[in-house]
């Protein structure tokens, strides 16, 4: 084996070298650089020498605490209420800026909930990062199952011997070949709040009852809109992978099931789905990874806005590393993302392990 790889194959290695070189320079090396930079205070351009800072970058990203706020009371011990009747609480900054609580210094409120009269406030050293983290997970949790499921449905539909079926295959696959940047730009027009295609369509379908909204400008719809577009864009790719899985299932198995009297659902349940097991594992892992890497759509369509409602981890990493020249902060986010994806993939592999 060794001799085959080294001695007898010099030309082969020669041909492979440019590819290996590029991969090494642009993928392998940066990967390790990210680990290194995340432990320093490296900036993109800086006159100061780089210093080792240990896990400071991670602390400033992941710092989380819960503080309890008692309601403000008047001298008689009565709870103070504002004009709307809502209970008044001391401001969070009285704690985060207080010298009495050095551990909370610099942290800001992320969200709060009430138990009885007391309010519990979750404060984070980096609220934007936390929002990005949550958005990313939300994106994965919605897009991965919906996209995989939809792709499977499409694959089942186009896995038939019908005249002109290739036209449908082409149509479904087309968005995959178009650059995501172009797709994002087009969908910005579709989602446009003033005269967008979607608003026009909904308004026409509801005979004018739908008043239209700024899909990407509204924090409650922005992330959902991007999810919908992302699902549409990549569903064709996964459809093709499902299709290849479907076509590896022996037609005789379907005939056997037919003779045994299986109906359509039973055929899917006992023949198709078990036969797609390996494909399902692949698709799940691939979609999960792609979802975690959500960036281009955000960059083109919303820039993380409005009100950080579409911040994502990769967008934050790029934003920090190049936007704010904070290479070390961006690297730390990348490393965190890597660890998240790695552990999820390992969990998925363990859950879907073969018997």
């Amino acid at each position, binding site marked *: 084996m060794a001799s085959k790889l080294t001695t007898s194959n010099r030309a082969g290695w020669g041909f492979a070298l440019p590819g290996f070189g590029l991969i090494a320079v642009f993928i392998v090396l940066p990967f390790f650089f990210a680990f290194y930079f995340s432990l320093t205070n490296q900036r993109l351009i800086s006159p100061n020498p780089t210093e080792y800072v240990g896990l400071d970058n991670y602390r400033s990203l992941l710092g989380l605490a819960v503080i309890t706020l008692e309601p403000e009371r008047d001298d008689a011990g009565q709870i103070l209420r504002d004009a709307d009747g809502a209970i008044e609480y001391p401001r969070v900054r009285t704690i985060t800026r207080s010298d009495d609580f050095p551990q909370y210094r610099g942290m800001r409120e992320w969200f709060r909930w009430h138990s009885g009269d007391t309010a519990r406030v979750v404060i984070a050293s980096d609220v934007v990062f936390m929002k990005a983290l949550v958005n990313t997970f939300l994106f994965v949790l919605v897009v991965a199952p919906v996209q995989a499921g939809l792709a499977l449905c499409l694959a089942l539909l186009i896995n038939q011997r019908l005249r002109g079926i290739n036209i449908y295959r082409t149509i479904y696959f087309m968005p995959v070949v178009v650059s995501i940047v172009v797709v994002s730009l087009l969908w910005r027009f579709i989602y446009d709040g003033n005269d967008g295609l979607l608003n026009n369509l909904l308004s026409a379908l509801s005979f004018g009852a739908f008043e239209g909204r700024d899909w990407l400008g509204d924090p409650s719809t922005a992330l959902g809109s991007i999810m919908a577009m992302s699902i549409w864009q990549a569903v064709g790719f996964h459809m093709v992978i499902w299709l290849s899985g479907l076509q590896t299932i022996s037609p*005789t198995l379907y005939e056997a099931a*037919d*003779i045994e*009297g299986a109906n359509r659902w039973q055929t899917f349940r006992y*023949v198709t789905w078990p036969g797609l097991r390996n494909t399902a594992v692949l698709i799940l892992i691939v979609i999960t990874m792609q979802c975690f890497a959500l960036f281009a759509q955000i960059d083109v369509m919303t820039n993380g806005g409005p009100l950080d409602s579409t911040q994502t981890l990769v967008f934050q990493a790029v934003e920090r590393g190049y936007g704010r020249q904070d290479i070390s902060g961006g690297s730390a986010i990348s490393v965190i993302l890597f660890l998240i994806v790695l552990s999820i993939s390992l969990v998925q592999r363990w859950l879907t392990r073969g018997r």
Partner: protein
Amino acid sequence: MATVRLRNLRKSFGAVEVIKGVDIDIEDGEFVVFVGPSGCGKSTLLRMIAGLEDITSGTLEIDGVTVNDLAPKDRGIAMVFQTYAIFPHMTVRENVAFGLTIAGAPRAEKERKVAEAARILQMEHLLDRHPSQLSGGQRQRVAIGRAIVRDPKVFLFDEPLSNLDAALRMDMRMEIGKLHQNLGASMIYVTHDQVEAMTLADKIVVLKDGEVMQTGTPMELYHNPANLFVAGFLGAPSMNFIKVEVGSVGPGQATVRTPALDPIDVPTGGRSFKGGDKAILAVRPQYLTPTAPDAGMLHGTVALTERLGAETVIDVTLRDGGSIIAAIAEDRVLKPGTEIGLSFDAAKAHLFADEALHTEPH
């Protein structure tokens, strides 16, 4: 258990007709083998009976009911495929019970029937294994088990032994034969292997190009082939065909000759010939007996000898340049180049009209 009747059954794929009007009667409990070369339509015919292919025209009756338009599951058939078609993710038990699971049968019934099938096929010890842990023969046994559990009126076998190696094939062949004896069910078996056909069948249907060439018991077909195709298809080594010229014709027999063949009277088998016709004389290699060079009816030199121990197959080049195979039922040393004569019992020879010879490999 049931009868199966095929009446003028036809099948076309587009403009191409692959089954050209087939009539076959299969009696209750009969083991019928469809045999023929690749592409003769035997598998298509079986799939039409199973309901996996539409019937273009004609009628198919199972147990007296026309089933042309019934779904496979409603025809009362079970099928065993060449590639086994057992579900890889299920245990043997689940595979065998699949039809019952689909039908929602109660657990007790499932267990009883699976145990019964496992007992018949002697595979109780395999029930909890997955197909990947089984050999080819065991897999085919699972497939047969799944068929038994269905308790079908007719068993259909589509070349069930073709994916097995030679030794295993013989074992399984015998097992299928025993299975038929035990169950007494009607079985239709498709194969391209004439040995399987000869050994298993109560009745053989020889097919070629979507048409029935001959139907009958194995021995009928072997001893009285209706045409050149059947004559050449059954028996190994295959029958010798000698181009001859018909001399005088008598009642039920004709005198034929060639430069290498002394004039001989052979039975015409009901076919009519007249003097001067070109014809084909067919003689099984087993019926040829070597004699001294000047004795016998055929004369030539040995071109090749194959010694198989119990049998010796010799290839003889005749004086007129033709070639003939003789199978001698003993071990004989015959050096290539030896002058040799061959004699045969004229009553065991067949005379066919000289049409284009059908010599597809089989």
